[in-house]
């Protein structure tokens, strides 16, 4: 058997789900793995198979705690197993393990039950969180750089900023999930149960809400900042590379806010963006 053939066989076997009925063919590993006096070929392969699945599950658990809260532990486990079976890691880093989860869930909505919209929102938020954590940052434009601000100027958004539209307030939920997780090591079981119950009730009673959100980082910590719809539109237009004047036209043309009021808001926005180091020079192409 060639090296490639052996690696294909072993990888296919250890990537089979751990669930009953879909396990590794018990006879097949004996064709390429030697047994020893304590373990059969299958048992030796299963050491690697368990390790594979636990490692990947751990990674998804860590990256998507909010989705776990939305779906519940069992449904999340089913989703994780099905997703990883359909979309094995295609990257050398496990950081990218969840990069195709939103696209996959849209194709397999049954795994989210009646919470599909909520789950998709949470996935978008949690993937944006991962990207905001370690994406590149460019030298920020400060208030002094914006003195020259005119309609022809092009500014860029920091590469780590993600702008997302949500239909549920999952940003609040994710913050609460984080807090609950931080308390996990210190609180009593009774307190933890009460908090878990409170989270479940919150998810159950969550009402739709149209939210414009920037996921960004400050001093290496990721934050969520809700934005005005016009502010979101302007940032998105700047992020696409439009000059300031055209970005304002595109984003604010249909705004119901009176022009004078809008002008004042735009000034406030730019000042805040500069203070949070969100703006950078547009990289030359």
């Amino acid at each position, binding site marked *: *058997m*060639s*090296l*490639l053939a*052996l*690696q*294909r066989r*072993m*990888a296919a076997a*250890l*990537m089979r789900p751990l669930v009953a009925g879909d396990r590794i063919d018990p006879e097949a590993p004996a*064709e*390429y*793995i*030697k047994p*020893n*006096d*304590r*373990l059969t*070929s299958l*048992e*030796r*392969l299963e*050491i*690697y198979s368990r*390790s*594979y699945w636990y*490692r*990947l599950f751990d990674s998804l658990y860590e990256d998507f705690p909010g989705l776990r809260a939305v779906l519940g532990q069992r449904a999340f486990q089913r989703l994780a197993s099905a997703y990883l079976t359909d979309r*094995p*890691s*295609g*990257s*050398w*880093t*496990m*950081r990218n393990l969840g990069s195709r989860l939103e696209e996959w869930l849209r194709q397999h909505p049954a795994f989210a039950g009646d919470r599909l919209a909520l789950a998709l929102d949470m996935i978008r938020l949690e993937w944006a969180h991962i990207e905001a*954590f*370690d*994406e*590149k*940052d460019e030298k920020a434009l400060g208030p002094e750089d914006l003195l020259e601000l005119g309609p022809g100027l092009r500014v860029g958004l920091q*590469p*780590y900023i993600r702008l997302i539209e949500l239909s549920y307030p999952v940003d609040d939920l994710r913050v609460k999930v984080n807090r609950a997780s931080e308390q996990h090591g210190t609180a009593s079981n009774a307190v933890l149960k009460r908090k878990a119950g409170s989270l479940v009730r919150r998810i159950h009673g969550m009402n739709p809400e149209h939210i414009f959100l920037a996921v960004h*980082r400050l001093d*290496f*910590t990721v934050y969520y900042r809700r934005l005005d719809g016009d502010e979101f539109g302007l940032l998105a237009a700047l992020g696409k590379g439009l000059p300031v004047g055209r970005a304002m036209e595109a984003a604010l043309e249909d705004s119901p806010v009176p022009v004078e009021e809008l002008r004042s808001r735009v000034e406030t926005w730019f000042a805040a963006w500069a203070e949070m180091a969100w703006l950078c020079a547009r990289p030359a192409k």
Partner: protein
Amino acid sequence: MPANRFNGFTEYGIGVGLRIPHYQHILEKKPVVSWFEIISENYMVDGGRPLAILDQILEQYRVVQHGVSMYFGSAEPLNRDHLRRLKALVKRTKTPWVTDHLCWGSVDGRYTHDLLPMPYTFEAAELTARKVREARSYLEVPIAVENVSSYAEFHESEMTEWEFLNEVVERADCGILLDVNNIYVSSRNHGFDPYDYLNSIPPERVAQIHIAGHSKFQKYILDTHDHPVIDPVWRLYDHAIRRVGPTATLLEWDDRIPSFDEVHAEARKAEKYVATPTKHNDALLPVAP
């Protein structure tokens, strides 16, 4: 023989693995540590906290890069994105040498994120050596390959693990990161004498040594890096040092990580073996069951 062309002619002594739970302690207390080993992939990102922390560490400490995703033994070509990012990190850290594992972990672009054992064949040795040479040529830094712990052996194998290791490093003309804990774990899982393994290693190629703890199960031993180093592994380390000479040594502790001081103290136990390697008769050394 501590400094050789496979570790950039350095004499680094005893190091500690840089791990997230210790960041704050290290940056605040600035403990005296000869060098830190980093997992390269943890810092092969474009920005944010990982690189900011690394830059602070680099201001005060020497760093050596240890990788987990090169997969020299995978039948597919090296991943160019991985290599490009690794090279950028090499420039940042100025690591005198780079290590990764003698294993495979991906096939047809699918990644297992594990260190899977090789079939010990001449075909695999040639392919692996070629990929090591390609990586070294691109990275422009010496490379050493690490022997992995394993739980399976293949019918296809044409030689022992140590013969395979020697075959690869000779063909690639690269160094060895000798993991004595991995030798111990594999010797117990496969029933060979770990001293046969150690005695076959070409001392002049050993760039670095790893020591670690492991977990014992009923039917096999798992390389978990979550315990102190056990005495039989210290004895193997002693033997390795006597053959190789004082060599840059790193304690790995990756799970259930205790305080930095505890990890550092465990690593520093290696100093006594480096300072005064035990004189004893090889014939009396314990043999694996």
